[in-house]
Every structure is written in C-alpha cells, then in structure tokens.
C-alpha cells in the first residue's frame, strides 16, 4: 500500500510531462534519484555521526545537518524541480524522438555521475540509516497532493497549450503558443513531483543506492503509465493500481497456495513473465491504455484560466 502511493506519485509525475506533451521521457527517474539524494543530504542520518563517514565530500555545513523529514522532502522537491527546469530548458529545444533519446542520455549521464561522485553520493555503496518517515497515511497524503498538482496543471492554460502543441505543433505556434516554454514548465513540474517520489522511496526503505534509480524503475513506471493510458490523469493512477495488483497477485502465486497437502506454485520468475503478458494484452485490446484517454470525473469542475 505504502509502496503503491510512491508509485502513484512517480507515475503522476511522469504524466505531467509525458501525458500532456506527448513526448516519451526515459530520463525522469534521474529527478527521482536527485530527490532521494537531496533528502539524504538534508535529513540523513538517524545517527548523525555516520554522515561525515558516509559522505566526506559534502560541504561541512551539510555534513553536520540532519533536519527533520519535511525539510528533506522540500529540499528534494526544490533540487529536483530546479534541475529539471534547467535541464528541460535545454532539452526542450528538441522535439519528437530526438527529445526522447536526449532524456535517455540524461538518465545515463546522471546515473554515471552519481555512481562515481563517491564523496557526495557514496558511489556504488548503499547509504543506510536514512530516516524512515513513510507510512500509508503520509504516502496517501503526498499522492493526493501530487494528483492535485497534476490536475491543476492539466486545467491551467499551460496544460492546455501543451496539449495543443502535442496535437498540432505548427498550428499551436500559429496560435501564439511558445512550445518550448510550455514544455519546459511541464518538464520542471514533473521533475519536482519525481523528486518528491524519490524522497518518499528513501524515507520508505531507509536505504538509498544509485542502482535503485535506473532502468528497472524507469520501465516499471513507464509501463504503468502506458497500461493505464498516458492520455489522462486517471489513466496514470489506474495504471499503478492495475499493475501493482497484478504483480502482487503473481507474487503470491509464486510463493504458492496450499491445497490440502499439495503446494501449487508457479515457477519462479513468472511474475515478470506474467507482467509482460498483461501488458501485451492491454496493448492489443486497448492500445490507448485502460482509461483510453478519458478521465474519471466527479461532477464537473472547471477552473478559470
């Protein structure tokens, strides 16, 4: 459950950029990583004496700080959002496939940097003793916050102009839309949400390691977004719930069910295979995802733009 709230934050973060702009990004997990490390830099550790040992390259001030978790989350949001804004302003000069590939190189570059910046990130070793603040209530609260931010962005003029540029780039420019600007704003905002997701992950496991923020989580979150339907915010949330339910079910089958004396169990590794099969089925029967671009609506809310 708590894990699911983290995924909701991550996938909603992806949706803000990918869903509205139509540009696939492989690089957003970088901002999750930046968020997790920002949380460590500000809020680690439960045993303050450990920090200078772990991270001798940090500025002395940071080595001696261990602020409460909310400060760490805020730092994660600020640093991830800020770096996403700067990086986005460069990458968003590209469009289409070129932009997608550029985001992938961003992920690879950020991963290599954090892996080798041993003094500041601990390099390949994992950082334990990170304060654990997550529980299902806090997770749900943050997830609702992320959904709310994404919804406000979706309803705002910046979300609307972004979707106009996704549908018809030439025509949107002719209507006075600054495509680069609206894309950069969305990139920054989605990076900010991803950063919070990273801090949540760190504050859930109590351990941070660079390898936790690479291809596995990139593809899992993208799969959730696509299965749910990248065309709507509801799709992002539904995708997380659906794929989490499927993996959880398959995991239980892998452990096995006792029927009398017999133990019925699926072979190990079936979890991944089963997930692949579910994705193929969804793509065949609902190519635009489970939600097919529609939103679940409660009444009819509209914002004045």
């Amino acid at each position, binding site marked *: 459950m708590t894990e699911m709230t983290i995924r909701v934050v991550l996938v909603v973060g992806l949706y803000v950029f990918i869903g509205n702009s139509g540009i696939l990004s492989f690089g957003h997990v970088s901002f999750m990583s930046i968020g997790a490390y920002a949380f460590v830099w500000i809020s680690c550790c439960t045993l303050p004496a450990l920090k200078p040992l772990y991270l001798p390259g940090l500025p002395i001030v940071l080595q001696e700080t261990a602020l409460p978790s909310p400060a760490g989350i805020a730092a994660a949001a600020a640093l991830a959002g800020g770096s996403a804004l700067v990086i986005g302003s460069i990458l968003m000069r590209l469009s289409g496939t070129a932009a997608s590939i550029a985001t992938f190189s961003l992920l690879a570059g950020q991963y290599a940097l954090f892996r080798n910046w041993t003094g500041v990130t601990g390099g390949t070793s994992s950082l334990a003793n990170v304060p654990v603040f997550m529980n299902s209530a806090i997770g749900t609260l943050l997830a609702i916050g992320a959904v709310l931010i994404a919804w406000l962005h979706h309803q705002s003029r910046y979300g609307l*102009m972004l*979707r*106009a540029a996704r*549908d*018809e780039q030439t025509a949107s*420019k*002719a*209507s006075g*839309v*600054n495509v680069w600007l609206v894309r950069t704003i969305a990139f920054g905002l989605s990076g900010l949400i991803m950063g919070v997701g990273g801090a949540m992950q760190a504050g859930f496991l109590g351990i941070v390691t660079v390898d936790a923020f690479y291809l596995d989580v990139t593809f899992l979150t993208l799969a959730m977004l696509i299965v749910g339907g990248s065309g709507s915010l509801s799709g992002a949330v539904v995708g997380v719930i659906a794929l989490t339910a499927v993996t959880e079910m398959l995991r239980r089958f892998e452990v096995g069910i006792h029927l009398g004396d017999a133990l019925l169990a699926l072979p190990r590794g079936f979890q991944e295979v089963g997930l692949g099969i579910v994705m193929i089925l969804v793509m065949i029967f609902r190519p635009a995802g489970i939600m097919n671009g529609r939103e679940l609506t409660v009444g009819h809310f509209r914002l004045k733009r």
Partner: protein
Amino acid sequence: MMVNDILQVRGLRLGYGRAMVLNGVSFEVPAKGLIAIVGPNGAGKSSTLGAIAGGNTVSSGTIIFEGKDITGAAPEVIAAAGLSFVPEGRHVFSSLTVEENLRVGTFRRKDRNAVEIDLERVFDYFPRLKERLRQPGGKMSGGEQQMLVIGRALMCRPRLVLIDEPSLGLAPRIVDEVYDILQRLRTEEGLSLLVNEQSSRRVMKYADEIIVLREGAVQLRGEPSALGAETLHDAYFGAGTFDHDSAGGTV
C-alpha cells in the same frame, strides 16, 4: 507601394536544402483587402504563407507587416503582433474541445474580458461551433473543422489572416459558406485576408487581386475582372498550352 498596405513582401527567396522554392516573390496586401495566391502544386504557395507566418526560414527578402519588419521573427511573436495563420489541412487540436481550441489563441492577450466578447463574436459568425462547444475538435466534420481553425485564428484579434487552401477537401456548398463568412469578416470587421487556392475559379468572385504563382515566381497579377481566361491559363500552366477549342478557362 501604397501607404495603406497592411503587408508588403519584397524579393522573398527561400529554399529547402539546395532546392530553391521561391525566387524573389513580391506583392502586397492592401488593408481590408482579400488577395488570393493561386497556382499549381509545388508553385511555392504554402512556402510563401509559411515564410510570412514565421514557420519557414527565409534566405533573403523582407516581410513588412503594418510598417514593421517581421522577417525571421518567431511564429508566436508574429501571431501576437496581429497576424494569424491558418495552416493547410485544418490543424485542429483534436483532443481539445471546441471551446479549448478557441481559447488556446487567447492566452497571450492581456484583455481578459474582451476574450469573452470575441468568443461570442466567433459564435455569431460560426453558430455551429457553439452547438459543439464541448465536443473534441477531432470529432467534427471537415467543414466544421475549417470553421473552427478560422475561428481560432480570429480569437487572436488579428488584423491580417493568412489561410492556406480554405477549400481543400470541402464540399462546394461548404466552400461557399466559408467564403461568404470571410467576406463578412472583411466588411464587418475590417479584416485583411491572404488566401492560397489551387483553383482560381472559386476566388474570382471574392478576391480584389489574383496572384498567379508558378515555379517560385509571380507569373501574373491583377484584378479578377481584368484577367482573361487565356492569360490566366498561360500564367498558370506556362505559355502556349491554352486550348482554344475547349476554352479551358477552368483553372
């Protein structure tokens, strides 16, 4: 060159890669006028409009809009300056509703209250759009989409609108409807228009001046009434191809 020209295009040259598409095109659009550029496929009609609207990079030449040089300015800047462009093929934002489509063009405007008035005015010209307010733009018929993109262009409060092939793929009755509305916009709103068409037949009735473009150069220009079928045909297809027997004045 007249003082009351809203647009002046001088010696426009433009190429894609090494292939030159426009070899020095010059013309002007008078204020409140309707000028039609006609010509066969590949003549450079769309490239000309694209260059004026800022989407195509110009190799040389100048484009002056309301006395200001806008050559090389970004499309969104030109749109904000009062020159709207309706690209070929009805580029509606297919996932946005009709209302959202219309509002996209207004976000650069500071006069928020006037936007609502303009919205009503667009509905006044295109009543069908009001009936389809909440419908996604992509789910409308071709004619409705054409009306939507023209309506969207009007929401930027332009003084000059460029329309690339307004009649493309539309039933003749709808084409007449679209042109009647454009005519009303000229007389009632004082709008200036520059349109591209493949066929001159349709615009003969409405245009103040026809410009025949072929192979990236202006072949002929003049008032529709002053252009004979033969001169028009020769300009369009090249000299000496006019067939007197079939009196082929149907370009």
